[in-house]
């Protein structure tokens, strides 16, 4: 059954977009940051995402799962942002290398307190990091993660599990090395 909020969004009701923001903005920002976006860029991504959804509000007519729809839009926005960053990196060469590493890594964490976790997250394959962000920060179920990323719920659960296992090993290594 369609979300009643989706119908109000399709009608272009301003209060519906305020409700959409309150329901999703914090989760979207945190998920994008966990997926490796730079903190400063993350707010612009989410801002532009809401404007884009308002422009194409007619699409809400056919939305059954609002969470899956919004996080799919976020995933595409993050992918576009990271693609742009890669192109900038290619254009500017080594000068942009360090900035890209910060952006793809976990610069959203304070370097002192969360350095180990940040490095561990940054070393995950992008699809596993994405699964962690959508599950922990987005609060999505594996079925929703599967819908967002175009994989089965079982595959989504496996990616998440692999991510946790790799993080555990990396964190143990970092503690041992300390």
């Amino acid at each position: 059954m369609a979300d009643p909020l989706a119908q109000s969004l399709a009608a272009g009701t301003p209060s519906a977009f305020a409700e959409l923001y309150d329901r999703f903005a914090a989760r979207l920002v945190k998920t994008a940051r966990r997926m490796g976006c730079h903190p400063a860029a993350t707010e612009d991504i989410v801002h532009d995402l809401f404007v884009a959804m308002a422009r194409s509000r007619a699409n809400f007519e056919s939305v059954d799962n609002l969470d899956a729809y919004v996080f799919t839009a976020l995933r595409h926005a993050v992918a576009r942002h990271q693609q742009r960053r890669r192109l900038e990196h290619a254009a500017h060469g080594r000068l942009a290398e360090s900035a890209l590493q910060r952006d793809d890594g976990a610069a959203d964490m304070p370097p002192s307190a969360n350095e180990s976790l940040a490095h561990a997250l940054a070393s995950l394959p992008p699809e596993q990091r994405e699964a962690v962000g959508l599950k922990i920060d987005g609060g999505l179920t594996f079925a929703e993660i599967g819908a967002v990323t175009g994989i089965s719920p079982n595959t989504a659960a496996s990616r998440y599990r692999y991510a946790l296992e790799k993080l555990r090993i990396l964190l143990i290594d970092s503690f041992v090395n300390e």
Partner: protein
Amino acid sequence: MKPLPRELMAVERLLEEHEPDGPSVALRSRTLDAVLNVLPIDSLPEQQSLSNDSCMPAALDAASALSLLGMALSLAWVGVGWLSFHGHPSPASIRPPATLQAQARAFGMEPGYPFLALDVAASDTPAARSGSKEPAPHPHVLTPYGIHHGLQGNN
């Protein structure tokens, strides 16, 4: 799906405890302002809609309209009384343009002279009251430029 082993649940808890920062406070107003600019005007809240700003306020209801009508009728009645008191004819003496054009010709005016259709002269002069066919010696004709006395003399 199998439940997570304890060591992986510990990692999960660690991730939850070290969640990234949320959005800044300013992002909400910045985003919603931009969204409002994208939405069509007719979907704005009712208190912001142009229709309520530009139309007659609801307070001006039937009672107000009736009182305005009463004031207009009172003013008309006072005007008619003032005209009668000064010996002028009642508005019933307003004539159709064809009659007035003939009279204008009798006053020596050009046929196309742009006068208004109100003649207060012919029906209320001593000559008219006596049944004479002669035109009034000093007719009063209301023109677009005011009341003209003795138009024959202007020619």
